[in-house]
């Protein structure tokens, strides 16, 4: 998505400060030398003083706008930004959104959640589960083409055989 064009000495430090991941195919060029700007790309020319602002800009580019999902539990109804959910799961015809240490009943269908959050790196891993890639801590492949996802809250979510390839592709994107 991004390419950082700065001189070699500064490259590593700036990359870290901007929390930037570069890729071969990119749409955005970040540089502190306007001569390095590329005509057919979106160019962000910055200087050292604006690094924080650039970081925020990058967050916005990558993460996009916040999407809020409305759910309820025993404490009442609440609107939660989607990326706080670890995963969504169907239990007894109800869709639950799992948060760090609580869960909420979500009043929309699972396929709607999948559709809503597919650009926010949520992915369906089984008939009943849509998972937030950003909240996976570790992937444990099982022997039978299944995967166990260890979530950052300690839960384990299984990637079914039918969703294995799709999940793998999603990681590569």
């Amino acid at each position: 998505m991004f390419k950082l064009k700065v001189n070699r000495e500064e490259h590593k430090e700036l990359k870290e400060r901007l929390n930037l991941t570069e890729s071969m195919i990119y749409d955005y060029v970040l540089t502190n030398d306007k001569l390095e700007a590329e005509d057919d790309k979106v160019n962000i020319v910055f200087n050292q003083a604006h690094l924080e602002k650039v970081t925020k800009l990058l967050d916005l580019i990558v993460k996009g706008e916040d999407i809020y999902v409305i759910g309820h539990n025993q404490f009442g109804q609440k609107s939660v930004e989607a990326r706080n959910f670890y995963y969504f799961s169907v239990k007894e015809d109800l869709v639950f959104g799992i948060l760090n240490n609580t869960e909420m009943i979500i009043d929309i269908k699972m396929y709607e959640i999948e559709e809503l959050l597919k650009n926010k790196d949520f992915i369906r891993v089984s008939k009943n589960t849509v998972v937030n890639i950003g909240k996976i801590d570790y992937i444990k492949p099982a022997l039978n083409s299944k995967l166990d996802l260890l979530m950052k809250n300690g839960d384990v979510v299984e990637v079914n055989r039918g969703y294995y390839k799709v999940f793998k592709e999603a990681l590569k994107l």
Partner: protein
Amino acid sequence: MEFLLNNPGIAFMLLIVFAFSIIMISKIINEINFNKLLKFKQKQMRINTQVTYGGGRVAFLSLITATPIIIIVLLVNMTINPMGDLPSGYKSFNSLSSIESVVDDFKSKSDIYYFTRTFSTDDFLDSEIFSNEVAYTTTVGSSDYSTVNNQVIGVAEMDNVVTNGKYIYILNNNLLTILYAYDTVNDYEDMHIIKQIDYSSECEVDAMHPVGLFIDDERLVVVGNTYTAYGCDNSDEGFWFNGSSYGTFIDVYELEDYTLEDQYKLSGVYKGFRKIGDNLIAVTTDYMEYENSEVDVLGSIPNYKINNYSFDIKYNSIVYLEGTMPNAFTTFYGINLEYGSVDTEVILGDGRNNLYVSENNIYLTSYSYSFVPFADILNFESNTSNTKTSINKVSYSGNNLSVEGVGYVEGNTLDQFSMSEYEGNLRIATTKGFRETAQNYLTIFDSNMEVISVLNEGLGEERESLKSSTFFGNYAFVVTFEQTDPFYVIDLNDVENPVIIGELKIPGFSTYLQPLTDDIILGIGFNVDESTNRTTGIKVQLYDVSDMTLPVVMSSVEILYSDYGYSYSSATNNHKDLLVSLSNGIIAFPFTTYTYNSDNYTYISGLIVYNLDLINGLSEKGVVVHETNSIDDIYIYKGIYIDDYLYTISNKYVGVSLIENPDEILKIIDIQKK
């Protein structure tokens, strides 16, 4: 690959571990890849990607993968070197080709290599059983009876006649006779045959030919061999002209009803047996088979069967002693007769000399050759520079055997009495060379088979070689001979400096010495005419060694040859045919005399009994003969006693007489095959 083929169990385990490792390694790689992708993806998502779980997990998986590999490597290593620390001087093997290369190497270096043809064996024999069984369980035998004249107390040697004070078990021409001999109510009067087991099937392949017996409170052990007899008609192929032995058999009978409890079949030719409590030690030799002048090592590897279940010897349990002729496998078997378990040690090389078994160790002597370097290239006439006697030491504990080490001495041993273990040290008497070059040695080894000392000065005059030796505590008694019989007393108290402290010269020589008391040594051998240097008769002597520095002959008796004849006693070369009873005050042994006249000869065979008086010496008590003026040659080959009675065994009869009056036979029964 050959090692794996020889160890299918290990090969199978290796295969499983290999498959397991492949799966585990691919799993680890897959896992690492997935989490790498995840990390990269989350970085792209500008999310904190610190993984809290991964590192330990990969280490754990790697450990699981590595553990079976480590175990299998250790297992293979232990199998290849099962001895742990192999005693120095020995080489171990891990494949057939490594054994074959030792054989080829020896053949290329040496100008001598002996073949002995042997055959492989298959099935067990059937023994024909005659006579009805009669149980005599209510009567009791005597607790005073003769036992086999063993070299070492507690280490039983086989014999062809054994008794337990009630029954006598007799081997005679492939026939085992169980004789009810004595009870405290009727003494000898009820003597009769209980059972006969016939092993005579000369031309039957794999038939057992019994050679010896052991007895204890629970069982009767019959040991034997199998051989192809001369002249057996093998219909299609004409006659077999082979008399070589190729197998060893051990039949274990329950003493209560003489049912066959266990049968052991060992592939080699027996070298010797010993029985210690419930354990039987057997030493056998499998000579290399050969085909078209090529040595067939594979076909000669020892194997054994327990009740028809076969067991093979693994290559890696075979060791080789550098310098010995690799023309055979010598196998030491430790057999627990109670549980039917077998332990083995196998040495590549022929143990064709003498076997001595002490209370804890087995010693077997062999020849060891040294070669002139490059002799085969330089084409020397003889490439063997020196021959020594190697002594393999194998320890035993119960039936567990272990190769302990090897020692080397100059010259050759004479018999099992050339060796003696005392306080962990082995003492061994040898003679090197013969006639002009004869030289005698007495060597002492420590428990690690390291030489402590060698005595070779003053032991025998010029041209004299070893005729007999015996050891009694810290003293050795050695007889050498060329013209006279020097009887040497050697003090071994200081093992580093053995000293000859006494010497006695008398005509003739003893071929067997047996200490009777601290002061008296019995010698049996031959008298010699000093002018002609020819033997003139059998001679029995008592040496008084109460003053070790001044041994004297206290008594001597002779069976002189007649003018045209000679005398013979098996006791001169088989100590088990000599009956010695201090409590009854007798010694007795079989003897045979031949007297020739112009057209015939007279044959007399009997058991001669002497009074053994530790003060007055030896005097003739009587002679037992089973049949006078017989047409057949009735050969008395054993005398034993139970209580007050002397039982004499010949190839036809068992006779019983009073020890006090041996000449008068009280009862005699025919023990020939019924």
